């Protein structure tokens, strides 16, 4: 890891509070997400990591009564400004979920281009190229290139998840959010996804929530540790820094206790 990382910030979070109705779920979270880096979010269950990552592409708004205070910027623009359409935010900040969710009525090919069916009509040759490129980036091309017309759900769990990654990549987002992408998968699939992530960071920026600390240590450049002081309290970003430091020499006691396994 370089001494000082000059990668620019692609997203910033400034004093974010998140509420579900009157319940405060996150308190005063601030961080910088750097371009072409992998940022991991770790912490015990229920501390708001998944809630937080959903605020980065406004997916928490699906739940009625959810709202945020504070600023989240993408390339300098506030994504929560009143005139901003969440649909456009989500096209630039993509998301992969914990449980693979390919569209069951569509083939593998159609799944990959599902997000593209919005904008201008593209030629078949262009779509073919996108399908191949994204499936290669997701490390799935070789396994499915001969069965692109089969249903998306005919694949194994690990393959489905890589299909979901390809589907997100087809929109060429700037940031890819991953909410525990490998926690439902076997170790071999997990390895493939981690390898894919490391390749992806050349072109994209990745933020990943993970329960697996070793995974965070393996793949990420920066790590944020979320913590909750007590039941019913809001989750907070307890510490944030370069991964190497967080895991070897963290500033705060709770961080050290968590990464050394004293509590989980």
């Amino acid at each position: 890891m370089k001494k000082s990382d000059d990668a620019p910030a692609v997203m910033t979070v400034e004093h974010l509070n998140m509420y579900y109705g009157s319940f405060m779920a996150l308190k005063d979270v601030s961080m910088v997400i750097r371009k072409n880096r992998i940022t991991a979010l770790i912490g015990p269950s229920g501390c708001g990591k998944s809630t937080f990552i959903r605020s980065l592409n406004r997916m928490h708004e699906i739940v009625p009564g959810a709202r945020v205070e504070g600023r989240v910027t993408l390339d300098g623009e506030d994504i929560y400004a009143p005139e901003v359409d969440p649909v456009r935010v989500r096209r630039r900040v993509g998301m992969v979920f914990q449980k693979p969710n390919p569209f069951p009525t569509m083939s593998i090919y159609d799944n990959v281009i599902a997000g593209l069916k919005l904008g201008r009509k593209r030629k078949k040759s262009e779509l073919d190229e996108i399908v191949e490129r994204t499936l290669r980036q997701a490390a799935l091309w070789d396994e499915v290139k001969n069965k692109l017309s089969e249903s998306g759900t005919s694949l194994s769990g690990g393959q489905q998840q890589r299909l979901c990654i390809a589907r997100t990549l087809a929109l060429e987002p700037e940031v890819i959010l991953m909410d525990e992408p490998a926690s439902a998968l076997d170790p071999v699939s997990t390895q493939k996804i981690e390898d894919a992530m490391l390749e992806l960071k050349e072109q994209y920026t990745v933020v990943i929530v993970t329960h697996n600390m070793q995974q965070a240590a393996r793949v990420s450049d920066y790590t944020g540790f979320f913590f909750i002081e007590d039941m019913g309290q809001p989750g907070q970003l307890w510490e944030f820094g370069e991964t190497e430091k967080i895991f070897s020499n963290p500033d705060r006691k709770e961080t050290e206790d968590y990464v050394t396994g004293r509590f989980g």
Partner: protein
Amino acid sequence: MNRRPLAEATTRYRRRKLVDRVMTALAYLCTAAAVIPLTWIVIYVIYRGLGAWDAEFFTALPQLYGDGGGVRNGIVGTLLIVGMATLMGVPVGIMAGIYLAEYGSNRLGGVVRFMADTLTGVPSIVVGLFAFGVVVVSMGGFNAFAGAFALAIMMVPVITRTTEEILRLVPNSIREASLALGIPRWKTILRVVVPTALSGIVTGVLLAVARVAGETAPLILTILGTNFPISLNPFEGPSTTLSLQIYQLAGQPSPQVVEVAWGAALLLVLMVLGLSVAARVIFRGNAHTRF
């Protein structure tokens, strides 16, 4: 600690076994009690009605005395009126079902759901009377459209509720995946959620159609019935259906006419059964919609 040998046959154990056998027997008896009436009806209708089926039965108009006569106009009428009712009721029902499932967790949704459930329970003769007052009176006469209108009213709540139920079965992860791709909500519903649930929705529609295909009471007050050829223009004059003809012919003194009524009954039963079976087959057949 209880160290009794496992194989010891105590009284308690023997009594438990007996109760088990008795309850199993009762369960079988109850199943039989449920299945026998249906089988009996089908067999009896076949027995009484099959004899009436000949070429004339399907091509001629009814005769009120003597041998001969058929139910041609009833067949045409059933297809015409049920078809029209389906065309009117299905879009309304499906859209209401989509609203309830995707947007309806609010107060308005609760009201709509309650009204749909209540409407399912309104007696069919009352629906017929309503159609009579609204359509027949204002149009100045009985016609097929009024009948289709009444049947459509009966179909809508059934389709609404089954559509809602089946859409609720679509896992939320599918909706999330679509929204996270930046696909707007309405497009998510139309292009992702509904196609996933499509076979279930079709099943609901077929079952609603099967239900109204046999309705008679609302038709008495709206299409009146006739033994003359019916117009294919639904706004022109009285019409008839198989169900209405069964009612009107079965009361005639001549036994040959009654036999024609049985033939119509058989035809109607087979149509309804066919729709129900088709509904089940369609629902089972689409592997990719089983989540």
